[in-house]
């Protein structure tokens, strides 16, 4: 019979050798992988609990806001809207896909508006628009937690360790994104401008204090201002409620109207918040060509079509920021970026048009907290 080790170093040596043997056995039987998958799953589950807490908190906060604004049957409406979905149009037949997509997007938006208006009949448009955004954020957070849970359970059920590993690696990013949405909810309900409001804020600065705004499209307004001898038409979403308006349709309608009156614009400038690359300075301003708008298609294509139709130079001004800065309350860097963008637009107008020309400037983005 082998002699038992007597002192501590001998014990440690024995345990190390045993561990080594166990590690080899685990390597051959795949038990090490199972242990690793267990650890990954445990980590995902812990983070999933936080995601579910975020979704629950958003639901509670939205219901509180609706109740404080006199909403009736808010709970059942919120549940219905949280699970609301849109089926994307058929894309193997691209003919009129933009029109079909626009129709579906507008239908969804109208549905949300009507549902919120039905339960909050006595509230004004600003309060209702905040409630709509709160519902959207609750819906997004609920979807994120549901989808992460789906991936985790699928991975566990099918013993797909690659899926679990990928999910575990993505979890910090998903958590960060969800946390940004959660914080954005508070900022939207407060009614403060967010980073994405930079575009409408540039439009407001250009128009000045005493501009008289006129509605041209649903939740979209415009005004005229003389800048350096040019007739500048300025378009933005109607604030200070939370809305992005219909900048594409409004611009198209405005330009058609101007052309019909013999005033063909020389320049069309779009100003919007743009996602910066890591390492780029927040609030920095860049110029380019094309339509600066983060839309899925229907609004953006209108800018392109109308500028091509009448041969108008389509220029873009982007105010750089991170995704987090774009949907959270505006910070000082972005506010300084707004001033820089105003100067850039002014210099673009004087550089690229002549006195007496007609120019259209569109401040694209969510106009929450920015009036006119």
């Amino acid at each position, binding site marked *: 019979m082998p002699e038992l080790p007597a002192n501590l170093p001998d014990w440690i040596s024995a345990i190390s050798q045993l561990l080594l043997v166990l590690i080899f056995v685990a390597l051959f039987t795949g038990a090490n992988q199972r242990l690793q998958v267990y650890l990954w799953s445990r980590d995902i589950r812990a983070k999933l609990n*936080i995601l579910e807490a975020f979704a629950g*908190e958003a639901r509670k906060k939205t219901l509180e806001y609706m109740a404080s604004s006199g909403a009736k049957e808010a709970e059942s409406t919120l549940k219905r809207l949280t699970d609301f979905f849109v089926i994307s149009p058929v894309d193997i037949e691209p003919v009129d896909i933009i029109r079909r997509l626009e129709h579906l997007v507008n239908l969804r938006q109208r549905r949300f508006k009507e549902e919120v208006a039905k339960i909050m009949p006595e509230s004004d448009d600003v309060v209702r628009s905040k409630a709509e955004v709160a519902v959207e954020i609750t819906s997004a957070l609920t979807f994120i937690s549901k989808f992460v849970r789906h991936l985790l359970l699928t991975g566990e059920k099918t013993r797909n360790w690659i899926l679990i590993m990928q999910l575990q690696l993505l979890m910090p990013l998903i958590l960060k994104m969800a*946390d940004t949405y959660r914080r954005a909810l508070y900022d939207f309900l407060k*009614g403060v401008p967010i980073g994405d409001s930079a575009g409408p804020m540039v439009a407001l600065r250009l128009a000045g204090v005493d501009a008289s705004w006129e509605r041209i499209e649903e939740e979209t307004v415009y005004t005229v201002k003389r800048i350096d001898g040019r007739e500048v038409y300025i378009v933005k979403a109607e604030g200070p409620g939370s809305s992005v308006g219909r900048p594409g349709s409004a611009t198209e309608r405005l330009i058609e109207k101007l052309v019909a009156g013999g005033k063909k614009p020389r320049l069309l400038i779009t100003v919007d918040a743009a996602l910066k690359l890591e390492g780029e300075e927040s609030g920095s301003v860049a110029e380019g060509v094309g339509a600066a708008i983060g839309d899925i298609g229907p609004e953006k294509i209108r800018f392109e079509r109308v500028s091509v139709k009448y041969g108008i130079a389509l220029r873009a001004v982007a105010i750089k920021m991170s995704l987090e800065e774009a949907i959270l309350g505006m*910070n000082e860097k972005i506010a300084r970026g707004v001033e820089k963008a105003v100067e850039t637009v002014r210099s673009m107008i004087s550089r690229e048009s002549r006195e007496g020309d007609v120019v259209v400037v569109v401040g694209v983005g969510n106009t929450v907290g*920015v009036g006119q």
Partner: protein
Amino acid sequence: MFHEGTPLEWLQPLLFVFILGLTIALMVRQASEMKKLEQTVSKKREFITVISCGDKEVRRPFKEGDFVGKKVSECDGGEGLIHYIIVKEEKKEEKSSKGLKSLFKI
């Protein structure tokens, strides 16, 4: 690992303790990260309203109903305009994860 009588025999207990310590440290770190994330839930941010009074600028805490472009009578004896509403900057500790530290960052 290092057999008896080899020159590195003394390293064995140290290695064992180091691996054990590292495992515990990583577990504690992961737990504290989760706690930190949960704590951010209750953290709320403050906003400042910047009012333009001609050449002067007045800053005050954000009030419900403020919006950019709103006329307010909060300038000395006159009307002003809400120029900005911005987040009150929080003082952050500069954290750098370099060298070994970055290895343990989750």
